[in-house]
């Protein structure tokens, strides 16, 4: 009945527009972002101050909380891209990304460490490209391993990736014989920090490139449609001529490539690697980014923009929490967990359904009450009419008498 009423109205009311906005997938991450911004502005008005200052290497670079946040969110954003695709197609998440980042980083360092620091620029560029390509291949292979377990052996993604989660960091250590490697060449650090003369951190550029590439891929190819179809119903998409196994494998390989980029940035940031600590807990953050973006973790439809926004919100939250000096860095996760649980509860489909239900019921009750009122009025009017008719007839009778 309510739909009829709204259909009759030609102009959407302000309330409906608001409802549409609230129901938008971007709403929750955006609100979270605004809340965080407001909170930070209240507690520290200078939080968003960005200044141009020389860094330790003597370059003029942008510095400030905002820049740090965007810079450090890079890995998370890149991972969120791949994780969203995997979630959509396979209905599960990859929990081995942190370990695979360690493997990718270890691969890069294994190639780069053999070179002396005083080689020419062109040669150095060649080595970097070779090491990067190799790390992409290695990560994609590990992604394919996960993907094969999920697609061909029908193992739940989280459990299939549990194998690499357990073994991944050990494999990373094995690649370099557990050596503590640090690269002395300053040029190696360009990719994780700043290129001299450019004031914006390099990872930001890499993130933008990744986002553009994935946007083009989704625009040009049918990847979005196919992975959503596979995620919603694998067997019906198979009947429609899509091979679900290949699509699942493909999403895992794409995630592998994303992981390679992250690993490369991570090792470049510090020019060294600690196998057990590098990208610690990043898989949790990446999954939370996807969940915060309002994507269904059971697969199906996805919104990449929301995931990317979710990733920034998570990093923002971390930065905000770190700002409190009295909070121990390792106890941050407790606060994070509380915030995340609240956010997920708000954005959960079942809660929204219940709220909608309640609203509908209230509206229905209101409509019913109005109908009753109208009926009562109609009855009253009828009674009055009958009375008047009676009176009239009585008068007429009097007259005739």
């Amino acid at each position, binding site marked *: 009945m309510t739909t009829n009423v709204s259909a009759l109205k030609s102009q959407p009311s302000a309330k409906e527009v608001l409802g549409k906005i609230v129901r938008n997938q971007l709403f929750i991450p955006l609100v979270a972002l605004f809340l965080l911004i407001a909170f930070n502005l209240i507690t520290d008005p200078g939080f968003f101050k960005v200044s141009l200052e020389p860094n330790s290497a003597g370059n003029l670079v942008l510095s400030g909380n905002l820049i740090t946040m965007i810079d450090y969110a890079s890995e998370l954003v890149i991972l969120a891209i791949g994780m969203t695709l995997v979630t959509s197609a396979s209905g599960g998440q990859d929990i081995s990304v942190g370990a695979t980042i360690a493997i990718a980083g270890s691969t890069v360092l294994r190639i780069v460490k053999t070179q002396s620091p005083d080689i020419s620029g062109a040669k150095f560029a060649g080595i970097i490209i070779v090491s990067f390509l190799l790390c992409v291949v290695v990560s994609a292979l590990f992604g394919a391993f996960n993907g094969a*377990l999920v697609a061909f052996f029908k193992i739940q993604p989280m459990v299939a990736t549990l194998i*690499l989660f357990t073994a991944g960091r050990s494999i990373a250590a*094995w690649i370099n014989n557990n050596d503590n490697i640090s690269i002395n060449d300053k040029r190696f650090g360009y990719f994780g920090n700043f290129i001299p003369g450019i004031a914006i951190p390099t990872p930001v550029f890499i993130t933008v490139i990744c986002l553009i590439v994935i946007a083009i891929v989704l625009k040009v190819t049918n990847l979005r449609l196919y992975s959503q179809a596979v995620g919603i119903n694998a067997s019906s998409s198979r009947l429609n001529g899509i091979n679900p196994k290949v699509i699942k494998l493909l999403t895992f390989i794409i995630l592998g490539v994303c992981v390679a980029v992250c690993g490369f940035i991570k090792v470049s940031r510090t020019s060294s690697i600690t196998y057990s600590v590098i990208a610690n807990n990043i898989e949790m953050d990446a999954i939370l980014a996807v969940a915060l973006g309002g994507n269904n973790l059971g697969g199906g439809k996805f919104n990449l923009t929301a995931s990317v926004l979710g990733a920034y919100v998570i990093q923002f939250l971390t930065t905000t929490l770190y700002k409190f000096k009295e909070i121990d860095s*390792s*106890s941050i*996760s*407790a606060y994070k967990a509380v915030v995340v649980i609240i956010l997920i509860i708000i954005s959960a489909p079942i809660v929204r359904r219940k709220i909608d239900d309640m609203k509908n019921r209230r509206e229905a009750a209101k409509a019913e009450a109005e109908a009753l009122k109208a009926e009562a009025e109609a009855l009253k009017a009828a009674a009055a009419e009958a009375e008047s008719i009676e009176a009239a007839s009585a008068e007429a009778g009097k007259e005739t008498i």
Partner: protein
Amino acid sequence: MSVNTNALGGSRLRRRASLTDTNLLLIITIVVFIVMYMSAVIFLQKGFTKPQMFFNILNENASLLVLSCGMTLVMITGGIDISVGQVTCLVCMACAVHLQKVNDGVATGNVFTSLLIALAIGLAFGIVQGALVAYMEFQPFIVTLAGLFFAKGMTTIVCSDRVPVTYEPFVKLARTEVTIPFLGSVNKKGIYIPAYVEVGVIVALAVVVLLFCLLRWTKLGRNFYAVGGNNQSANMLGINVKLTKFLAHVLCGLCAGLGGYLFFLHACSGSPLHAQGAEMNAIASSIIGGTLLSGGVGNIVGTLFGVLSLSTIKNIVTSLGLEDAWWTNITVGVMLCIFLLVQSVILARKNKNKK
């Protein structure tokens, strides 16, 4: 073989065939464990020939055993709980701080109150996570992930350093050795050393027996299987699916609390680094023990052997001289991979038979 029985027809025979499939996983696990241990005894010798080696494996893994049993319960209902490792860590820290306070005379209490604290923490995690999973219909992975985060943070909020426990009665309890008759060994000097297990092992084995009985003979236990096997049919049969899932999580939480206390009993200290990766070991043990991730299939006895296999292979790797930490993890990963593949093949075969 199952094809033959199917050809014969008859629902009873087919039922036996499907039972063979689930039992097959259990048999594989037991055989793998025995072969592994025997080959270790024959080829490695070192400590493996002594019975005490076996009891040491039990001593070290009593807490893992309890955690894995809880995990198996949740996995049978089709869920997963990845917070158990960090809950263990939190329990250790909370109990250690409590007992130290008692020791310093700041607080009143004894060993029993610390056990209550442990169980209360586990129960709280179980209830909250169970309610979120069962009644709010969130994905168990996400809910318990948040639980993991929360426990991890809470541990460092309680205390961020290592807290050794010096409280006398507790240390006495922790050092209590239950000797096992006839299985001791004679050392180089000719002195007989009896074999022993710690108190925790006995508690853990009691939990195993208890949960085995629960799963096999009680209505609740059968409901776990029904809910995990097929949610909707269970619902149509009049089983309260939500309550069953909730209870599975609560029991798993209790197991995490108790497992945490056993870990505490073995380690005698609290530290933010305790029980790192225990949740993964627990999941791996359950999988190796033949619990299917899709739910509906699993066995506590299998989990017991899963824990034993996992810890035996770790011990073998260490005694092979591959002491670098990575070999243990890589072998565990490979083992997990093999068992997952076997499960997948068995499931595929089962589905084919159904068609």
